């Protein structure tokens, strides 16, 4: 009698997801290279799309003359204030509303009504209230950051493990002790998710505000360059924005890893 032998094979092979680290780098390099080629061959006029090397040269020029720093510094200053104020207020309100039922009843409907307003629409009003100076731009950024922070923190507080809350109370924790030692650490991962979300929104609102009413800043630089048909300078501004976004995301990730040391993995 013939004997048949059937070997079992791993049927999950097609589910594997390798990292493809080299591909990640190559994809980005490829894009820049293709862009350079398209502009070098004169396929696209450099008036509409300057070459990457041209943008780099212009950027270095602007660094040397100090122009870039003037704009970058003004933008960073507005970002820092707006982001800081919005984030702090958001965490405070989120914890308060998440923990105290009365605060929840009062604030929740107000947030629900104001959250959907596109914050940039408030800029004219904020300029009327706070003047054309820095305050109105900082305020619009702060408002934009406040909502995702408050909503995320609130969700984080509500998700705190009831068992840990019971344990803390059973060992004598009062209201403030509980908030500080259990609620806040429980909410931290959500707070960081809010910070990352808020960073993107802050950048968006900052540029929009600077294009409406400012005499310096990256947003102003882009708008002015556009008006003067200085496309290379315009592209420098855009690249700087992209770098700012990447840098803030990376910095927040590093901060998160440093603060939340107890995470698994």
């Amino acid at each position, binding site marked *: 009698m013939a004997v048949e032998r059937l070997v079992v094979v791993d049927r999950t092979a097609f589910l594997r997801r390798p990292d493809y680290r080299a591909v990640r780098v190559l994809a980005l390099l490829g894009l820049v290279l293709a862009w350079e080629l398209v502009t070098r061959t004169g396929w696209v006029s450099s008036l509409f799309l300057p070459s990457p090397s041209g943008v780099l040269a212009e950027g270095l020029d602007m660094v040397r003359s100090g122009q870039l720093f003037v704009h970058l510094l003004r933008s960073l200053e507005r970002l820092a204030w707006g982001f800081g104020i919005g984030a702090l207020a958001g965490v405070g309100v989120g914890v308060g509303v998440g923990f105290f039922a009365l605060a929840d009843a009062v604030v929740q409907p107000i947030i629900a009504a104001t959250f959907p307003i596109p914050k940039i629409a408030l800029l004219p009003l904020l300029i009327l209230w706070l003047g054309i100076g820095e305050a109105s731009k900082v305020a619009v950024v702060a408002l934009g950051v406040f909502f995702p922070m408050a909503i995320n923190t609130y969700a984080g507080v509500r998700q705190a493990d009831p*068992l*840990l809350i*019971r*344990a*803390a*109370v*059973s*060992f*004598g*924790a*009062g209201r403030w*002790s509980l908030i500080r*030692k*259990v609620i806040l*650490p429980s909410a*931290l991962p959500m707070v960081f998710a809010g910070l990352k979300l808020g960073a993107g929104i802050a950048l968006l609102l900052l540029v929009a505000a600077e294009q409406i009413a400012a005499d310096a800043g990256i947003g102003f630089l882009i708008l002015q360059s556009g008006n003067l048909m200085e496309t290379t300078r315009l592209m420098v501004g855009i690249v700087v924005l992209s770098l700012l976004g990447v840098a803030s995301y990376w910095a927040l990730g590093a901060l998160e890893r440093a603060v*939340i*040391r*107890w995470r*698994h993995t």
Partner: protein
Amino acid sequence: MQVVIERVAKTFHDRRGRDVVALGQVDFAVESREFVALLGPSGCGKSTLLGIIAGLLPASAGRVYFEGEPRPGRAPVTATVFQEFALFPWRTVRANVEFGLEELGISGLERAERARHYLDMTGLGGFEGKYPHQLSGGMRQRVGIARALAVEPAVLLLDEPFSALDAQTRTLMMDELLAIWERTRQTILYVTHNIQEAVFMADRVIVLSRRPGEVLEIVPIKLPRPRRESQQGDPVFVQTADRIWGLIKSQAQAALLDDEIVAERGP
């Protein structure tokens, strides 16, 4: 100091507004330095009772009080060891053990000293700096026990502390808890649904009936101390365990059917 549970009853209101009587009327006392086990079938309200004693749940009727010579300078406290450990994941082992001491307002130096003492007692020396997720289940529950012992409570409440552990670890942990009790004679109220566990460890076993939970009988365990695992073959051990099983067998069967009906009706 003894803990008196006086005519404690608990009624819950379910979502449809019906009353569910979890505890009928429960009366007993835990004497100072005594090891008492609270035993009952599932759903007899033993965890509810423990919650009431810990002050985590209001009783519908009756009261719980401490009676005896007060310890100078401090109110009597309870401390709970939870079935699911309930360790703070963001705190190291040492910081978890110090939690209750912080809430008692004990200074940093004394805190560190007391934590050190109880960490050593529970075999956690060398693990102070670890986070809970880095520990095995047995080690985590040691942290839970050390955290509770550290506040030196008037009564230590253990809510099925080893039922989340595998069988071998559970046996070892029971031995260690008994050894700690022999050294400290800490008053203990130990909730379990495991008859062997209760008879092996306790001075007295309080047998609760099925919902509404009431005291069926209080069974004194006449086994000499210190207890050894080999005593589980002792005729006294076997007879006592059999007698308690006889008390709750019909109750457990009824509870089983009851649970099935509830499950059928479930959402």
